[in-house]
């Protein structure tokens, strides 16, 4: 694929829409876990708020600063995990990681919806961490160890 075609894949309309009109942008004041995560190599940062009830993610919102890819990904992630049981949210995160690495993934269990638009990121190795930042924050918020040494919790 030409670099122009790759670029069009990277910045698909649905991604730009999430960037311009982010879903779930904001804070949850009461009863939420808050996770700060940043990518020290570029300065992107996200603060993710989640309310977990009865083993499910009841609410998820985020604030932060970053490029189109990181903010669109945060918007899509919060949309996708709302209402999911913790195990499913973590499974979805693994699927997303594999998608970013350009590896095979089985997304049949989930309605990936807009998330699949981010597939193009896998062609841009320098941008993968932008896309995974919010997902790593979600994993951390659910008590998972993060094995990505390039992402730092504030």
């Amino acid at each position, binding site marked *: 694929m*030409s*670099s*122009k075609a*790759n*670029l069009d894949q*990277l*910045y698909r309309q649905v991604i*730009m829409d999430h*960037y*311009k009109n982010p879903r779930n942008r904001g804070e949850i004041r009461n009863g939420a876990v808050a996770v700060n995560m940043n990518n020290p*190599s*570029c*300065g*992107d*940062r996200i603060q993710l708020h989640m309310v977990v009830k009865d083993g499910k993610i009841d609410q998820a919102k985020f604030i932060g*600063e*970053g*490029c*189109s*890819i990181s903010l669109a990904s945060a918007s899509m992630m919060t949309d996708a995990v709302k209402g999911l049981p913790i195990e499913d949210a973590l499974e979805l995160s693994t699927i997303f990681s594999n998608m970013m690495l350009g590896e095979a993934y089985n997304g049949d269990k989930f309605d990936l919806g807009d998330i699949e638009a981010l597939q193009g990121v896998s062609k*841009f190795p*320098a*941008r993968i961490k*932008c896309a995974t930042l919010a997902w790593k924050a979600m994993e951390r918020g659910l008590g998972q160890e993060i094995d990505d040494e390039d992402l730092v919790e504030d």
Partner: protein
Amino acid sequence: MNVQEIRQQFPIFDQEVNGHPLVYLDSAATSHKPVPVIEKVNDYYRRYNSNVHRGVHTLGNYATEGYEGARAKVRQFIHARSTKEIVFTRGTTSALNLVAHSYGQQVCAEGGEIVITPMEHHSNLIPWQQLAKRTGATLKYIDLKDDGTLDMDDARRKITPETKIVSVVHVSNVLGTVNPIKELARLAHNNGAVLVVDGAQSTPHMAIDVQDLDCDFFAFSGHKMCAPTGIGVLYGKKELLEQMEPMEFGGEMIDTVELHESTWKELPYKFEGGTPIIAGAIGLGAAIDFLNEIGLEAIAEHERRLVQYALERLNEIEGLNVYGPQERSGLVTFNVDDIHPHDVATVLDSEGIAVRAGHHCAQPLMRWLDVTATARASFYLYNTEEDIDKLVDGLVKTKEFFGHVIEG
């Protein structure tokens, strides 16, 4: 200075990146390497690879001559008095850490003040911040003026008889500001302090005379001046280096070793524990020859023209904001509209144009500028006005690409 002839000596330009000729505008991060440097390093490994300072066999002698010959070239290049004042390090970062750990630890043992600036690269900020934490010394910052130059009135207030160390970047890697080193040296010395200079962004681009600058320490990296990565230099005045303790102990740096005591070699070897960076030093020597042949004055003049042209052309782009003073070294840091610099850099990359995007290892300066990140185009002897034209075209395309998104 014939730029086209110079470019032919850099094999990296014989390729296309993403289907376009490479436009490399990231030399402030690292420079490319010309054939004479690559060949000199190659030649060392092919013909006389050996350890240095072991004396007896023939190849060892060649290697020692190459390594010490490079030290002599560095001495001449920055006009130090003696090769004893030239310590090879891994780069600017390790040179500055050596000063902070060894000299800094000594003079700040009972507190005192360390004075730096908010425009420091992390490599000239964290070593002092951590030294202050270890010793209880006070870390002070000289204010910046709105245009990104140092407020020298504030420097006169901040540097006091309590000050032990003043450490300042010669040329800012973000703003391009060229700091008044001689004046800072006078201020530091009048108060009994030493002046440390981070020369990573100046040494590749302008003639350096450490005696004229009258700095006490001066650090720079080879890889930003056409030499390989992994080699750098710490210059220090002999009387200061002599009173300093080594930081790394081991082979190469000792005189005699007893079971419970050891003594160190003379300068500069006591700071070069372990097998040194032989190929890197030889490559640095070759890079110095290469740059000298073209002439640092000619390089500086070429970059002055480029940066003026870049500022003119970039000003044509609506919504483009340039940071830093008008009078600057060969780099331009900017943002375009509300487009995140990562997105700018990705679109430019698809056109074969390499720029840096991010915080440039200067997070406190980003906060001072009130931005999270910026894009930066930096120039060197192989760049042309055509490179800048392509950058401008690429930025116009970037604006078109994102324009419909941001404006809706």
